């Protein structure tokens, strides 16, 4: 990793679910571009996860001029492809510097570096400050391992720099929407208004072990929404906030910001909400914001699993929330996770019966994935969770549900969801 004389050529590469475009690479590109100590030529590329990893590697190797650095965010869903891509890249161009980040690799950075020789460095936690600093270090011949939030190799040894605190002032992060023209993917786009989560669900990495909420300012949120919602051709957008209706006040202010675009027919889809706190007043605010569909739990109705996962569930309030949304014309997607610790087959079946009883527009049933950095990952042995160590870390068995019944329940749940959706419209 020697000092360079020309502009550092950095390719930010997203491997995404079909129809999506990586928001992470957009944030990172804006952050790196804003780093005054760095002379970097940046390119951002997005690929569908359905594309063969060798063809993605081909595309990257064909870039002219060739990048000096390839940086890729990694989710559990895309990790296998990313590892294959970088393995091919490194074989073809050993001098290429490969940097990974994201929720799949950050919490297990040293393990990833040990297992993936093609990876040179892993960014732990948020990348908007760490990646520019790492690139500066690489460009100036500094020590990557000394950069807070980075794990890297030092003479063959995997070494981690100190942890980096999460960014306190989110407005200090350059907006990915304001400086460059934003191109929606499939007519839609994604925005975030805060980071963190008020809940500490043990299967989820969203809150990263903390209930601390860090919000962008209202001015920044309004500017980001305006930049996205004003793009010609945009039909819908969504917020990736873990809970859109965080407080009544916040919901009302978001509705104020989104309402002008909603009046122009731009809709918000699959907004994650705490359904138990939605009444007719809140539902009207959602409609004012342009919300067409919301996504919610309950994930489980079993008392033991709810306790183990630090979740609450009140069937009456949940049902009332769904009904309030329906009265307002908002479609509700209910999610259930099969295989949470403490759940039995009977609990899962009761969960399916409950969500069916509220007649959601969509029922999403999925088997638990034990994600790095989560409480379940740390306590899997203690809780009796057996899962695939390879991403996406799908559950294999629990103390209460064996492998065969997990598969049967998943097939059953998916069919139930299909049956619910096959209705007159």
């Amino acid at each position: 990793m020697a000092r360079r004389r020309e502009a550092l050529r950095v390719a930010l590469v997203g491997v995404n679910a079909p129809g999506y475009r990586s928001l992470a690479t957009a944030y990172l590109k804006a952050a790196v571009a804003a780093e005054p100590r760095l002379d970097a030529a940046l390119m951002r590329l997005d690929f569908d996860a359905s594309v063969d990893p060798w063809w993605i590697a081909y595309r990257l190797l064909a870039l002219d001029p060739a990048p000096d650095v390839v940086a890729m965010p990694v989710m559990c869903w895309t990790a296998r492809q990313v590892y294959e891509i970088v393995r091919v890249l490194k074989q073809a161009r050993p001098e290429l510097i490969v940097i990974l980040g994201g929720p799949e690799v950050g919490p297990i950075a040293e393990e990833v570096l040990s297992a993936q020789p093609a990876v040179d460095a892993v960014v732990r936690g948020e990348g908007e400050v760490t990646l520019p600093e790492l690139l500066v270090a690489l460009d100036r011949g500094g020590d990557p391992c000394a950069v807070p939030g980075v794990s890297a190799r030092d003479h063959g040894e995997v070494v981690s720099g100190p942890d980096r605190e999460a960014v306190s002032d989110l407005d200090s992060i350059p907006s990915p929407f304001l400086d460059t023209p934003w191109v929606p993917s499939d007519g839609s786009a994604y925005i975030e208004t805060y980071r963190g989560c008020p809940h500490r669900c043990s299967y989820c990495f969203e809150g990263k072990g903390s209930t601390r909420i860090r919000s962008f300012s209202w001015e920044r949120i309004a500017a980001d929404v305006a930049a996205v919602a004003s793009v010609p051709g945009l039909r819908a957008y969504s917020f990736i906030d873990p809970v859109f209706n965080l407080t009544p006040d916040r919901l009302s202010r978001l509705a104020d910001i989104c309402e002008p675009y909603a009046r122009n027919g731009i809709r918000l889809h699959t907004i994650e909400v705490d359904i138990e706190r939605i009444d007719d007043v809140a539902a009207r605010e959602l409609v004012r914001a342009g919300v067409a569909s919301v996504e919610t739990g309950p994930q489980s109705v079993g008392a033991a699993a709810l306790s183990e996962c630090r979740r609450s569930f009140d069937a009456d309030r949940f049902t009332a929330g769904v009904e309030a949304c329906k009265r307002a014309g908002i479609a509700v997607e209910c999610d259930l996770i099969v295989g949470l610790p403490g759940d039995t087959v009977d609990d899962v079946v009761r969960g399916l019966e409950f969500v069916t009883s509220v007649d959601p527009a969509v029922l999403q049933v999925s088997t638990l994935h034990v994600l790095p950095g989560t409480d379940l990952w740390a306590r899997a042995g203690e809780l009796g969770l057996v899962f695939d160590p390879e991403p996406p870390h799908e559950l294999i068995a629990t103390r209460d549900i064996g492998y065969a019944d997990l598969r049967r329940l998943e097939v059953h749940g998916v069919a139930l969801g299909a049956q619910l959706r096959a209705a007159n419209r």
Partner: protein
Amino acid sequence: MIDYASVPIGAAGELCCARCGAPGDMAARDAADVLADVSRIAAQWTGGPGPNVTYTGFEPFAHPQLPALVTSAAQAGVQRLRLRTDAGALASPGNAAGAFAAGVRQLEVVLLGGSAHSHDRLAEKPGLFEAAAAGVAAWRAAATDAGDRTFVSVRVPVCRHNEADLPQVAAVAAAWRCEAVHFVVTGDAASEAVLAAALETATVHGVAAFVSGAAVPSQVYATSLWREVDV
């Protein structure tokens, strides 16, 4: 899980094993009587997804008033109308697209055997298996053309004449891309081992399977995807 009110649209006209005995005199029910039932059900429906109705008792595509039965059900507020059918007539031009356009989204295909030989023999209708396969494919194509969702399940009336064929029936349900298969067992028509093999065949192909009327090797297989409610 999801309730469906069974509404007979005729008598003795539903596909069943001919070897188990003649079902009696076949007769279609008058549409006005059927729709009176449907309207009453829709008006009285309480709780849960619905109202949902399954037309039973007679091959729907042989019913002379099927279009009226379908459109009127939708007008009565039926959310899910399911046709129990042998699927043979669905391959005829216009039938699948016509039924889909009229609002039908769910089919319950009656399958007696897992091959043309066994199915046609038990149905005593030569060529029915191949016609049903073509019919289900036509239905899928109609759904794709309409850009809308459908749900196709297979209903297997289990008797001693088709017991050994049950795993193959499950494989056919998968090959036809059906979402679910329901084995309806009467008496001691099927051994637990054969039923288990059929259920596991369905599961490994991603088809939800469940049984009524017999013991099963897992609680999941005893969990119905739907409940038939007589009215």
